[in-house]
């Protein structure tokens, strides 16, 4: 099965798998180097408390980046996910405040996220508009809706059930981490073990060929964006739990962090190539760097520079690897 997806991606299964494996080894190496370096610089880095903080801080990014991976595998992009976190959070929190039901709050938050994703999917999949332009529009639309719904003010939340996922820890382990792991497993099954997953790769590798083969890529695109929206809705629930309030400016710039992590993880910007494992490693590396730079008190002006250099370095490495394989 993996052979078939890889074949669609590059036409040479072994090469595609090898280059991704190499990318993962590089990422793991970078994670180890960064962890050791930051641990030497500040012993707090490897404290259980800090590891808990680190994992909690990237939980939302894990979810959003996994959704972004599906989208980028189809050759698309979704700039609206950060705004969607704010919008779906607003719907969930207002439902909770109005009805007092955490279950309804959860459901409406996820449905609201899926609605924005559905709008993206319809325009991109059915009307064949540019993913960049469509999601740029919904980026503004969702943020605007959030601001209107919240009347630009935050809303405090004290419902223990609603706050549980984002706010509670078992010792130093935030409960959201096992939850994210479950989502990762479920999405891995969806991507690697189902016809839908094969359609995702096919749509990104060559949509025309996929169409000829009866894959219905336009329908796949709609569902990929709906899935990403649902993950934004889940992220909103976690965010509300983390800050005990609904926030109109939640999720700002998270789309860029998610895209960065997905690219770090080896998913091609042009679609058809990449895996969720790479995204997980990308998010982890990104989170470790951010956490470590804060812990070491690195000047924020320098932080941007370092993040940019690392991303540039990985992209360069990727290009060199691809060229090496091609030769």
């Amino acid at each position, binding site marked *: 099965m993996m052979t078939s997806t890889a074949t669609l991606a590059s036409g040479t299964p072994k090469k595609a798998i090898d280059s991704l494996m190499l990318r993962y080894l590089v990422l793991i190496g970078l994670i180890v180097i960064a962890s050791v*370096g930051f641990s030497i610089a500040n012993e707090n880095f490897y404290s259980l408390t800090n590891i808990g903080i680190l994992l*909690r801080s990237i939980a939302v990014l894990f979810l959003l980046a996994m959704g972004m991976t599906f989208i980028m595998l189809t050759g698309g992009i979704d700039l609206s996910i950060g705004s969607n976190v704010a919008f779906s959070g607003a719907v969930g929190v207002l439902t909770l405040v109005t009805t007092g039901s955490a279950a309804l709050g959860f459901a409406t938050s996820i449905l609201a996220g899926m609605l924005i994703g559905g709008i993206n999917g319809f325009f991109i999949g059915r009307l064949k508009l540019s993913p960049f332009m469509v999601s740029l529009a919904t980026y503004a639309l969702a943020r605007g809706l959030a*601001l209107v719904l919240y009347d630009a*003010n935050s809303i405090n939340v004290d419902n223990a059930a609603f706050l549980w996922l984002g706010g509670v820890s078992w010792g130093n382990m935030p409960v959201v981490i096992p939850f994210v792991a479950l989502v990762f497993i479920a999405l891995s099954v969806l991507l690697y073990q189902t016809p839908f997953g094969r359609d995702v790769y096919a749509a990104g590798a060559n949509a025309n060929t996929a169409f000829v083969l009866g894959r219905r890529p336009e329908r796949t695109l709609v569902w990929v964006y709906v899935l990403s929206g649902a993950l934004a809705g889940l992220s909103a629930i976690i*965010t509300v739990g983390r800050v*005990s309030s609904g*926030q109109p*400016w939640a999720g700002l710039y998270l789309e860029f962090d998610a895209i960065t992590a997905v690219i770090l993880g080896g998913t091609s910007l042009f679609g058809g190539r990449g895996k969720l494992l790479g995204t997980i490693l990308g998010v982890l590396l990104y989170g470790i760097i951010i956490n470590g730079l804060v812990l070491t008190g690195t000047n924020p002006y320098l932080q941007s520079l370092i993040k940019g250099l690392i991303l540039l370095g990985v992209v360069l490495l990727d290009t060199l690897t691809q060229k090496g394989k091609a030769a």
Partner: protein
Amino acid sequence: MKLKTMTAGLALATAFGAGAALAADDTLDIVFINDGHVAPYHVAWLTGFEDAIAAYDKAFEDVKVSGRWLSAEGSLEKMIQQTEVTINERPDVMFVNAINVDAFEPLVAKAQAEGITWIAVHSPMESADYSFTLGDVANGTNQGMAMCALSKGEPFKVGVMLGQAGNPSGEARREGILKGIATCDNVEVVAEQPADWDTVKAQTIAENWFTQYPDLNAISGVTDAYMYPSIAIATNAGNTDIQFYGYDGDIPIIQQMESGQVMADILLSGTREGWNFVQMAYRIHKGETPEKVYDFFTPLVLTEENHKIALEHGFPEDVQVYYVPQALEVAAKGYLEFGPDSVK
């Protein structure tokens, strides 16, 4: 290789810094978490903070004063993460300019449980140990009243550029400006528009206003960051009659008062504020108890000539006004008011 070198360098530099810190008996570690770091006000603010840390450390041999600042770059999630990491580091004092105070309530308790003094910046928090506030409503009112007086009773149209929707400080400034303008009936607010503290958005808004309202008399803003592009657009268009009413006390904006384009400003001054942070932290460290809600002293800035005109047109005499030379000196030299000498 680059990353390895960088990481090793980072580790060595930090280890060296930590070694130096061991030399002092008493330590005061201050962390300032801000919402941004690139606006002119932020740059002055953070520079003032860094300079003050160095000056206090040098001035007091019995206390090792150290500090650092972090920027959330406008992201709530990033600020939460930075705050959590910082609490785990257990500094003595944290200044947090929260993007939204409600989101930080759970963290205040965590910080206090670790023995950290939490100082809420600009937007007061009941749960915080202290709140460092700007008196935004009063300042805005002074700006609005100055506009009333300097318009001399003539029909006067103004556009007001606002902060980010929902930001408490921006909302308070808006409330104050409109309250001040409401003290006279000749000034009409023809447009209000949030520019999200963003200079580029301010530029677009100013361009639109100049086209839409050719008889616009003034632009008022809740930050001097909006003044730079607005003044530039007006100047390039040859429109030298339009007046500007700023807020922040940025030195380049105060300097433009003498040319007559900028009529009034509120002297926060990032440099002063950075120095005041360190002074406040030092005072707390030495056992003093500042007021729970500490109001940063922020006078109105006018030229001497405009102050006279304003007074003749009903501007209240009890509003504290700095003239341009005094404001420039204080804005540039935070240590004049809040340096180590102020607490010796």
